[in-house]
């Protein structure tokens, strides 16, 4: 069971997208999401989809893989779609049972549904094409200007890095503890809420004890190597911006521009285009 969980969504590759600086990709994801909310009609989605297709194409991540990532969200998408379809007030189209589907409801459901799907695919491209460790470095770098205002960005980034390093270890520990307790008759799967809570104790207590034991050892090791926190600390691989990052920023601005223009309805003003 544990072996089926690949840590994170990262799909290894050497594409131009993969090589982009993590900070640029994070910012791009923000821009992408914001533009999804700027778009007001279906035509706007064309720009977004074109962008997304381009990115997916360059990254080389197989479509099948991306779709697999959608599976867990499927229910939420379905749920949102259904709620929107039945709950929006307006001119009725059909009646099913005691529920009414309105024209507005249908439009809303599809519009929001597409937005949701694009939101998730777009933001998953970030984690698909960026190694978790690069992501945490990127977040640290992006947050570091705020250190002057008291945000402990180095410490946060350090926590993320250490946590990342330990998650596989802890997953193994959890697996072992679960199996050991199951061999003693523990049942983690059935029962009501109260029972499930109780059944977690034989799992969580040994897990925390193991985890903190590891923490103690690590703290000693770091101290022994003169770790003193982020002050004046350098790194082995400094994050450098390359020309491709500038190219990416350019495209990002073009994309954003197009989105804003479209949303303002300015395209309709160009005769012959609509």
């Amino acid at each position, binding site marked *: 069971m544990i072996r089926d969980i690949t840590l994170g969504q990262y799909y290894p590759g050497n594409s131009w997208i993969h090589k982009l600086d993590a900070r640029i990709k994070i910012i791009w994801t923000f821009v992408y999401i914001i533009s999804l909310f700027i778009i007001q009609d279906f035509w706007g989605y064309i720009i977004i989809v074109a962008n997304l297709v381009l990115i997916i194409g360059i990254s080389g991540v197989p479509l099948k893989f991306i779709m697999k990532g959608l599976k867990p969200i499927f229910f939420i998408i379905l749920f949102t779609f259904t709620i929107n379809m039945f709950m929006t007030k307006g001119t009725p189209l059909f009646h099913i049972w005691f529920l009414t589907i309105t024209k507005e409801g249908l439009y809303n459901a599809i519009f929001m549904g597409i937005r949701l799907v694009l939101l998730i695919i777009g933001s998953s491209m970030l984690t698909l094409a960026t190694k978790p460790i690069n992501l945490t470095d990127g977040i640290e770098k992006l947050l570091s200007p705020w250190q002057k205002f008291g945000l402990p960005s180095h410490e946060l980034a350090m926590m993320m890095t250490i946590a990342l390093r330990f998650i596989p270890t802890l997953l*193994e520990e959890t697996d*072992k*503890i679960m*199996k050991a307790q199951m*061999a*003693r*008759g523990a049942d983690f799967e059935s029962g009501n809420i109260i029972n499930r809570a109780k059944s977690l104790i034989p799992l969580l207590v*040994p897990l925390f004890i193991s985890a903190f034991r590891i923490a103690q050892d690590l703290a000693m090791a770091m101290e022994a190597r003169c770790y003193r926190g982020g002050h004046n600390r350098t790194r082995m691989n400094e994050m450098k911006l390359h020309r491709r990052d500038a190219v990416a920023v350019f495209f990002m601005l073009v994309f954003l521009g197009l989105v804003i223009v479209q949303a303002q309805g300015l395209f309709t003003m160009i005769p012959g285009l609509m």
Partner: protein
Amino acid sequence: MPYESAALTDISFDIAKGEFVGIIGHTGSGKSTLIQHLNGLLKPKSGTILIDGTDITDKNITMRDIRRKIGLVFQYPEYQLFEETVHKDVSFGPLNLGLSQEETDQRVKEAIGLVGLDYSEISERSPFELSGGQKRRVAIAGVIAMKPDVLILDEPTAGLDPKAHADILSMVETVHQKEGNSIILVSHNMADIARLADKVLVMERGRLTISGTPSEVFAQADLLESFGLGLPPAAALMRELQAKGIPVSTDILTVEAAEEELYRLLAI
């Protein structure tokens, strides 16, 4: 602790009631995977596992029934301790099986005694304040208290010093004698296996390669070597002496037998 990713193929064996079986094989050979199949933690893609005539791969079998019959002690079992007191922790298994508090209390007392600890001294203490060796015994007691027909132990002496190692093994022997159950011992220690096992199973790359009595298995030294396995020290010594032209019997597994053979040879 590396987990075995080897799949298992073509495994078939029988264990008689009360038998003491040893499973040997280098890391990655599939030992852990195999024993997890035996108590239902893993399910085989094909094949059946019959325990006392009941097929545990059957869909209608409940986990409880399996756990009643098969007990599994993992490596470093002390990491599974979690309760406030030793008594409560050892009670965990029996209570999960649905036993009454009275019966559980009785079993807990027995089990703690069987593992060589003093019940009155230890039962109300927190398992976390015990020594490593004591913790391990408590953990094993937790499984013994479930009175399984088959007790599987995965390297119960891992990480222990020689004295503790010997103590744990003699404890396993005691349990075997007193409870009369079948024991499956997974171990890297050939001397222990040679001394205690009635039957030995050799795992290699997910397959069961040789099986037989310790004499039969350890007679195939070259084959074992190709699997990355050694011989019990006594047997290895005899083999080496033989190779040097000294006429000793190689059907020797234990230190005592080696001693006798050497005395015989030196005509003392």
